[in-house]
């Protein structure tokens, strides 16, 4: 499924959180230039325990508890990157990346371009994102569209443990800044067996997680799993759904998006962020520009509502997030358009 350089197979299924931890541990062991920095990433092992054990293994010089200050977490990582290290900067929640927005967008993304390759900025900014964890307005946001808009950044949002590990390892080895979004709603599961060895997944390649014939649904993060659930439910009704996992949001895998659009002629893009001017708009425009005459129905978007962020109260949170049932209903409509 995932493009892997490894053939060995492990037996124990792992979670996305374990995948993140393993990727960092392996890359830190492989390359002494790799450091991890952020608030609580050291002794505490991260608020989600993503870096549990790394402080003991690699010490306080390479696993660095920083002051609670996002701009300098990213900014100092930039300074370390230009000086030859390979920093992983953790932003505790993607919602808190906004204070570092200038450092990410104006600095990290532009270091190479503005120096015409005089300097490079090999840096990974990891940030848990997304809702469904009762995080309210400031622990639930999907901020990927802000960063995916920016040339000079790569933006990754995996949804399965194998991809999580393989893409994070690729991100750490990348010569350019990568914003790496981990959906916190799927940190614990579903688990899967991750190929052992040096498992790498290339940045910029989408993956068909479930092949199908009648409609295509394109998603990433937690929504990918809700789309898989919807596809499973619809299979019983005779509707065959192809599920494409974008995995990388910049650069988008144009080829894979157009391929599934041409195959089924009916496309729905599902994302948790509010609908307007988000990832769905770009994917839809791409298909409209390049595959319009292969379509049998208008492109559909299922996404969050146009309110500033996700409310805390359970019924409101549930209202905000696209459900498997809601996605299935949209795909049913699309299949019979």
């Amino acid at each position, binding site marked *: 499924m995932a493009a892997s350089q490894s053939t060995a197979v492990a037996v124990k299924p792992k979670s996305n959180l374990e995948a993140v931890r393993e990727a960092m541990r392996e890359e830190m062991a492989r390359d002494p230039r790799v450091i991890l920095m952020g608030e609580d990433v050291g002794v505490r092992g991260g608020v989600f325990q993503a870096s549990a054990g790394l402080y003991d293994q690699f010490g306080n010089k390479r696993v660095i508890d920083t002051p609670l200050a996002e701009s300098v977490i990213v900014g100092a990582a930039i300074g370390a990157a230009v000086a030859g290290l390979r920093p992983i900067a953790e932003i505790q929640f993607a919602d808190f990346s906004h204070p570092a927005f200038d450092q990410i967008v104006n600095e990290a993304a532009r270091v190479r*371009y*503005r120096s015409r390759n005089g300097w490079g900025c090999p840096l990974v900014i990891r940030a848990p994102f997304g809702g469904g964890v009762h995080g309210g307005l400031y622990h639930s946001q999907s901020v990927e569209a802000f960063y995916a808009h920016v040339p000079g950044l790569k933006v990754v949002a995996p949804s399965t443990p194998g991809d999580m590990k393989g893409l994070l390892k690729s991100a750490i080895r990348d010569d350019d800044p990568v914003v790496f979004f981990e959906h916190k709603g799927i940190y614990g599961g579903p688990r899967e067996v991750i190929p052992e060895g040096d498992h790498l997944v290339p940045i910029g390649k989408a993956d068909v997680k479930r092949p199908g014939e009648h409609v295509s649904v394109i998603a990433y993060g937690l929504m990918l799993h809700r789309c898989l659930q919807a596809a499973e439910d619809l299979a019983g009704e005779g509707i065959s759904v192809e599920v494409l996992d974008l995995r990388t949001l910049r650069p988008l895998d144009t080829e894979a998006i157009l391929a599934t659009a041409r195959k089924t002629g009916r496309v729905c893009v599902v994302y948790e962020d509010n609908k307007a001017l988000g990832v769905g708009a770009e994917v839809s425009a791409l298909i409209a520009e390049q595959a319009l005459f292969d379509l049998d129905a208008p492109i559909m978007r299922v996404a969050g509502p146009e309110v500033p962020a996700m409310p805390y109260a359970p019924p409101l949170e549930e209202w905000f997030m696209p459900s498997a049932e809601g996605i299935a209903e949209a795909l049913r409509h699309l299949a019979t358009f």
Partner: protein
Amino acid sequence: MARKQGAAAEARAPATDLPAERLLGMYRTMVTTRAVDERMWLLQRQGAIAFTIPCKGQEAAQIGAVAAFDPSRDWFYPYYRDVGVMLSLGMTPRDVFLGGFGKFDDPESGGRQMPYHWSLPKARVVTGSSPVATQIPHAAGTGMALQLKGEDGVVFCSFGEGSTSKGDFHEGVNFAAVRKAPVIFFCENNQYAISEGLEKQMAVRSVAERAAAYGIPGESVDGNDVFATYAVVRRAVERARAGDGPTLVEARTYRLMAHSSGDDDRNYRTREEIAEWAKKDPIQLFKEQLIRQGVLDEARAQALSAEVADEVDAATDAAEQAPWPEVADATRFVYAEGGNGRGR
């Protein structure tokens, strides 16, 4: 205590360990800095270049400070007015003018950045942007990286006093202080953030006082005096290299020109105020100091100025005749194209 240290340094100047040849070189760099900066202004007023952001008046602070560093191992995060810093580090007048025009051979950016947005990988001068204070967290991170790698380099990070109002100043200096990173935070206090005087920018009497909030030494020095500035920064560099962490140095100076070629300073400060500061012109002061020390005489100073004028004329012509970037080049190096930067 911080202020006392600064005062003591001024009292000791111009006693210095800098040899005569080095002092003459610094004087020449100062004269060249002024000539380049004035030429940039002229070119902008002629319509030959789009923009400039003058440093006139700040040359002593820049050249005195950078003289305390070791160009063979130290790292530099200058800010946009630092012509004197860059000429001290091996950038040529031609290089500066190439950047002014936006020509392809501009070593900073190949014509992509506005003038005075420095980058010189071979001298470990790291690329900067326009929003102020953004380089301060970078400098802290580079200092941290040097510690981790066990290297003994020190990081120079300069900015205007306007930058000290920003969050990135606080976050960056605090980060460096917590980690005892080898960074010299060098504030060129030229009294104005565009139109806003100090009383609109800060409630402290001196930028150096801000150091107390980070538990690091803060020193204030006469930034129009090369010797005084050098002495204070040199002590700070020695402390940093010995593992004793960062220092905040405030060089008190004055911006003799408008903020930029796009600014008109007539409605926010008096001509009399500028004239008072012009009497304390740092180049004139340095020249007098060197003549008193017997390092320089009037005839030699005049000959040197004439040489510099010729050099600047030739550099202007060379830059003007240099090729523009090709449009096809504009899409290059958004990402790495094999290898991670020509400088690294």
